[in-house]
C-alpha cells in the first residue's frame, strides 16, 4: 500500500533539513505510479495472498474460520471429480486449441492471398464471434447440441445415431470445444493475418522464380516466418484453455443445477461450484492454488519450448 510512501513524504521536511533534488524527483515519480500499485495491491495482490492463507482454513464465508492445515489439499486431491476436472481441462484444451490454430492459419492464408476486395468485411466477420456475449453463444449452441437439436437431427438424417451431447463423455467435450473454436478461431486468424502481412513479398517472388510450388512456399517460407506468431497464439490459447469456465458452466447449467456435470467440469467450474454453490471456501481456495501452480508450470513449459524454437525472433536470417 502507498501510505508508507505518502507518510514518509509528508514527514520528510520535518526530519531532514532538505530534500535533495534527486530524492524529490524519485518520490514524485513513485507517487505518480502509485495509483496502479495501490489498486493492484487491493484487487490483485491481496486476494492472491488471502487465497493462499484461506486454503489452510475451513470456512463457509459466514461462520468463523477454522485452521485445518493441509486437510483442504488432501480433500481436493482425494476427490476423483477434481482429477476429472483436471483431465477434462487438458483434453478440452487440446480439442479446442489444436484444430482451431490449424484452421485459423488456413483462414489467414486465404484472407491474405485470395480475397483482396472484401478483406475488411471478412476480417470483421471472423472477429465477430469474439465480441459476442459468451452466455448468448452458449445458449444458441445448447439448442444446436440438444438431445433433439439440430446436430442430432442432421446425424439422424444421415442415418447415424443421436449423440448425447448433454451427457456423453465425448459428446459434452465436442460441444464445448466447438464453442471455444468458434469463438477464438477468428481472433487468432486476425493475428496470423497481421503476421502474414509482415512477410516481405519479394521472398515469395524469389521462391516462385526458383520454381517453388504453393505448398512448398507454405512449408518453407510462411510457417518458419510465422513462428513467433504461432508461439504467441499457442501461449495465449493455453492459458485461456486452463481458465475455461463460461462455456461449460452455461452449457451444462441450463437446468439451474447445483453442480456442473462431470463430463464437462473444468478446473475453474470445479472451483466455482465449490465456493459459490457448496459454500466450501477453504477447499475452493486450495483448488485455486493448485490451478495457479498448474498455470505457472504450463507457462514455463511454453516458454522453454518457445526459446528452444527461437520464438523471440522468427528466423530473420532469410
Amino acid at each position, binding site marked *: 500500500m502507498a501510505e508508507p510512501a505518502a507518510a514518509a513524504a509528508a514527514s520528510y521536511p520535518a526530519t531532514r533539513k532538505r530534500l535533495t533534488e534527486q530524492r524529490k524527483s524519485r518520490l514524485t515519480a513513485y*507517487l505518480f505510479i502509485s495509483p496502479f500499485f495501490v489498486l493492484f495491491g487491493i484487487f490483485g495482490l491481496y486476494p492472491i495472498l488471502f487465497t493462499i492463507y484461506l486454503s489452510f482454513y475451513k470456512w463457509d464465508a459466514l461462520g468463523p474460520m477454522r485452521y485445518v492445515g493441509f486437510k483442504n489439499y488432501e480433500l481436493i486431491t482425494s476427490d476423483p471429480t477434481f482429477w476429472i476436472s483436471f483431465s477434462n481441462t487438458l483434453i478440452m484444451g487440446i480439442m479446442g486449441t489444436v484444430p482451431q490454430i490449424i484452421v485459423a492459419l488456413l483462414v489467414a492464408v486465404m484472407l491474405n492471398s485470395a480475397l483482396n476486395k472484401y478483406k475488411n468485411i471478412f476480417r470483421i466477420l471472423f472477429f465477430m464471434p469474439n465480441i459476442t456475449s459468451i452466455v448468448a453463444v452458449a445458449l444458441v449452441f445448447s439448442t444446436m447440441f440438444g438431445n433433439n437439436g439440430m446436430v442430432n437431427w442432421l446425424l439422424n438424417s444421415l442415418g447415424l445415431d443421436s449423440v448425447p451431447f448433454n451427457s456423453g463423455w465425448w459428446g459434452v467435450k465436442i460441444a464445448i470445444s466447438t464453442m471455444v473454436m468458434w469463438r477464438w478461431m477468428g481472433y487468432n486468424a486476425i493475428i496470423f493475418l497481421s503476421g502474414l502481412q509482415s512477410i516481405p513479398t519479394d521472398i515469395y517472388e524469389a521462391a516462385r522464380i526458383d520454381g517453388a510450388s504453393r505448398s512448398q512456399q507454405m512449408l518453407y517460407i510462411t510457417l518458419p516466418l510465422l513462428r513467433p506468431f504461432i508461439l504467441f497464439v499457442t501461449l495465449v490459447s493455453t492459458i485461456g484453455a486452463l481458465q475455461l469456465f463460461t462455456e461449460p458452466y452455461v452449457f451444462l447449467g441450463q*437446468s439451474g443445477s447445483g453442480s456442473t456435470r462431470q463430463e464437462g467440469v473444468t478446473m475453474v467450474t470445479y472451483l466455482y461450484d465449490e465456493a459459490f454453490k457448496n*459454500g466450501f471456501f477453504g477447499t475452493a481456495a486450495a483448488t485455486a492454488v493448485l490451478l495457479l501452480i498448474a498455470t505457472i508450470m504450463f507457462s514455463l513449459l511454453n516458454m522453454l519450448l518457445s526459446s528452444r524454437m527461437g520464438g523471440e525472433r522468427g528466423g530473420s536470417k532469410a
Partner: protein
Amino acid sequence: MSRFKTWGVMLLSVMMVISLAACSGGSSGNNEGSSEGTNGEQQGSSNEGASTENVELSFWSLGTTNYEELAKEYTKEHPNITFKFQNTSDQTAHHANLTTALSAGSGAPDIFMLEIAFIERFINAQDKFYNLYDLGAKDVQGDYLDWKWKQATSVDGSFQLGLPTDVAPTVVYYRTDLAEAAGLPTDPQEFSAAINTWDKFAEVGKQFKDKTGKPFADLTDLVYNGLRDQSPNQIYFSKEDGSFIGDSNPQVKKAYDFTVKGIQEGWIGNWVLWSPEWNKAMNDGEFGVLLGPAWMAGTIRNAEDSSGKWQIAQMPEGAGNWGGSFLTLPKEGKHSKEAYEFISWLVNKENQLKSFKVSGLFPSIPAVYDDPAFKSEQDEFFSGQIIAEAYAEAAKSVQPVYYGPLHDQTDTIIKNALKNVLEKKADPAAEWEGAMKQIKTLVDRS
C-alpha cells in the same frame, strides 16, 4: 509554499485513490429502479407507533414479483419510508452476493428475499440476521401455512429467519387433447383419479406411449421430484444431526427406481429442463404431462400455441413443494423496526392476493384460498379451469421437510445418474453406486 501545494495535491490524489478503491468493494450490481418517495400526496401517517424520521430501505428481490409496485403504495401511506430495489433472476448470483456482503460485514440490504433452496445455508448464521420473533412475528405465525413457516425456523424453534412470500405446491399439468387420443379421461377430477397412485401412473404412462407414440412425462428430473418430495420429514439429510441419509432413505431409492422404470418402459422423454427444445415440445404437444409447481404455469403460458389444451390434476399420492421464498432482515440493516413493519404488510392477506393476480405467486396464507376473489377466476389458458382451487387443494397436502445445506448439489448428482441411464443407456445400479460415492466425498468436505 508552492512546494507544499504540490505535495498537498499529491497526497490528496493518493488518498482519493485509496478511498475510491475502498468504496468500490461494497455492494455490487446495479441499483435499478430505485423508487423515489413521492411526497406529493401528504396523507399524514395514520398508524401510531411508527417513527416519522426519513428512512430508505434497500430491498434485494428475486425473480418476477409485484413488490416494487406494492412498495410504492406503501410509500404513499408512509411518506417517510422510501425504497431502493435491486432485482435479479439469477438465484446463484443473488445469494452469493448476500454471502459476500455478510462476510465482508457491509453492503447487505435491509430486506433480502431468500429462496428456499438456499435457506439452510443461512439459517445457522443467526448472528447475521434479525430474529423475527423478537420483532413480533409470533403474532402473525398463525396466518401462514404451518409447513411453510417452519421451513424458515431454526431446528430448536427459537429463531425465525423470514416471513413467507409464496408457496409452490406441485401439480400435474396435462394435455387434454393427447389424453383424449390415448383414451384417458380429460376431466381433472377423473384424470387425477386415473393416476392417483404411482403404479397407476406408470400403467397410464405405458398406455399413453402405446396409443400416441409420444412419451407420457417430459423428463426424468420432474418425475423424480414428484416421488422425492413425498419423503416424510427429511430427504437426503437427517433432520436431527444433518448427516447423510440419502443412501438409506427408502423413498429416495423408490423415486430413483421408479424413474428408471419409466426410462426403461419408454414413457419418459429426454428433454432437458429449461432448454428451448423443451419449451418447443410443450408448445407442439410432444408429451402428455408435466409435473411441476404452481409457478410453472408461467412457463407453460409461454407456449402460446397450446392455449386451451392444458388442465391441472393432482399429483399421485400427495403433492410436494418446489420453491417459494422468504423475506429476511440482515443484521447490517439499521432500521429493523420499519423494515419488519413493511414486510409484514407486504405479505399480508390482501397483498398476497394481489401478488397472485399480478405475478402468479401462490399465497402462503390459507385464508386467501377461501376468498371469493381468489377462487372464482376461470383461466382461459387452462381450458376455463379455476386453477387457484387446484393449487389450493395441493397446498393443503404438503408436509414440511428438512433439506440441509447440500440438498441441491446432492440432488443434482442423483439426477445426473438418471440422465446417464436415459441418454447413455448406463446400468442403473452402477450409476446409483457411483452417485452415492460422489455424494459421500462431497459430504466429507463439508
